[in-house]
């Protein structure tokens, strides 16, 4: 069973349309949503969570089309603002969640609090951004969720905290039936964690692909403008002038034998596709 299945999801606002988006996350996989501000990542996540009403399409979470309390028992969510009331201490948050989730695991929650060095008596409003996010993640991981949905959960965190968070997420997804949908501006985080990468641009999906396959398929060709112009059209996905000549995003298998193609990072690939893509 797929953890998440989105088909033809459409949502229109004045001046913006999330346009006919379809994607699937199999169990045991991590899918990263990459997109610039206003690309539609949060609209997509809000549609999945039922915070906004899509104009069309379907969202199936863990085999259920309806977002019922029973389904949400198995979904852990961390939003960019976390959303925990500012006067609550971590101990009070634990009590509120214990009264909310049937599967709440207080022992596990306390283990996370300890591991993440979150104080029990301090109020949420006195936490740093990193601590707030860590508490959000501790809550999301303490009710035996099978699907995690994270919207910009690593943004604004320092590298050490981000590394801690990524480690927690790796442990979560180590279990076969666990899956993660994660959006972030920090492409390197997604590159470290994700099995699948999705590029979102102006409300549309530019691509949905396995990360390793993307890195295998695409490469960067560097040369003079003439060298780039001479490349076969079938190989070139995008091109741009560089201070040292020109560079092209190319499909490795369509390149002439012996061509010098360097590896490309997911971040470079995304920027290329969005800015220079055709």
């Amino acid at each position: 069973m797929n953890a998440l299945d989105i088909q033809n999801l459409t949502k229109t606002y004045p001046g913006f349309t999330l346009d006919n988006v379809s994607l699937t996350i199999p169990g045991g996989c991590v899918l990263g949503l990459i997109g610039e501000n206003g690309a539609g990542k949060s609209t997509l996540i809000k549609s999945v969570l039922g915070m906004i009403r899509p104009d069309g399409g379907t969202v199936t979470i863990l085999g259920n089309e309806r977002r019922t309390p029973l389904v949400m028992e198995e979904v852990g969510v961390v939003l960019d603002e976390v959303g925990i009331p500012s006067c609550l201490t971590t101990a009070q948050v634990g009590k509120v969640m214990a009264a909310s989730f049937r599967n709440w695991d207080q022992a596990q929650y306390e283990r996370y609090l300890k591991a993440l060095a979150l104080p029990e008596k301090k109020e949420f409003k006195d936490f740093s951004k990193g601590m707030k996010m860590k508490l959000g993640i501790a809550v999301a991981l303490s009710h035996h969720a099978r699907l995690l949905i994270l919207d910009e959960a690593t943004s604004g965190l320092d590298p050490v905290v981000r590394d801690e968070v990524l480690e927690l997420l790796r442990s979560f997804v180590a279990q076969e039936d666990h899956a993660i949908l994660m959006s972030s501006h920090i492409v390197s985080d997604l590159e470290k964690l994700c099995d699948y990468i999705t590029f979102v641009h102006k409300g549309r999906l530019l691509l949905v692909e396995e990360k390793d396959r993307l890195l295998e398929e695409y490469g960067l060709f560097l040369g003079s403008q003439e060298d780039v112009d001479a490349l076969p059209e079938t190989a070139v996905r995008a091109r741009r002038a560089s201070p040292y000549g020109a560079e092209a995003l190319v499909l490795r298998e369509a390149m002439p034998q012996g061509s010098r193609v360097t590896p490309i990072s997911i971040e470079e690939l995304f920027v290329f596709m969005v800015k220079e893509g055709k």
Partner: protein
Amino acid sequence: MKGLLLKDWYQTLKYCRTYLIIVLVFMALGVFSQEDLGFTVVYPFLLGAMIPVNMISYDTASHWESMSLTLPYTRGQIVSGKYVLCLCLQGVLLVLTALSQTVRMCMRGSFSPESLGLTLLILAAMALIVPSLMLPVIYKLGVEKGRMLYLAFIGLTFAIVGITATNADAVGVELRMPVYAGVAVLGIAAALFAASWLLSIRFYSKREL
């Protein structure tokens, strides 16, 4: 819904302590004052009606509004949490008022079950009517417009008390209506509260966050 109520209880203890102190002071004034007690009896219920509104306001500011939709609750349960909170708070206030007014009547040697009952019926009705009118507006239009409506209702409430009362007795005013009319008023208020509850759920179900 237990988690939602617990969260609101923690917030009430943190942010509405002043309200709780004011309520206790007003109850004490209600016992010892020889003056017209209309305001001291009515005002705690107006404060009580304000607490769920404040909770919605804090929910918006802390982004709990969004987070609560990621928890295992329906939108109906999220709205119902505020109505249940309102009933609990106003219920406690009504019990405290019954106690303070009984003590006051006994101290003055003028205890009348009928007069006390009628007073409590009217107060209970008022305790339901104010939030009934405020909460759907808040769920439809947001907290700020709801607050403005609340202020309008404070004025309206005192106008109604002024019209239905003449001179001082147990609650500082003598209610002109018979007890059965008080029961009818409470019945109407309860029906309004139920309709308001359903309407708020309907508004919130359509709201996009």
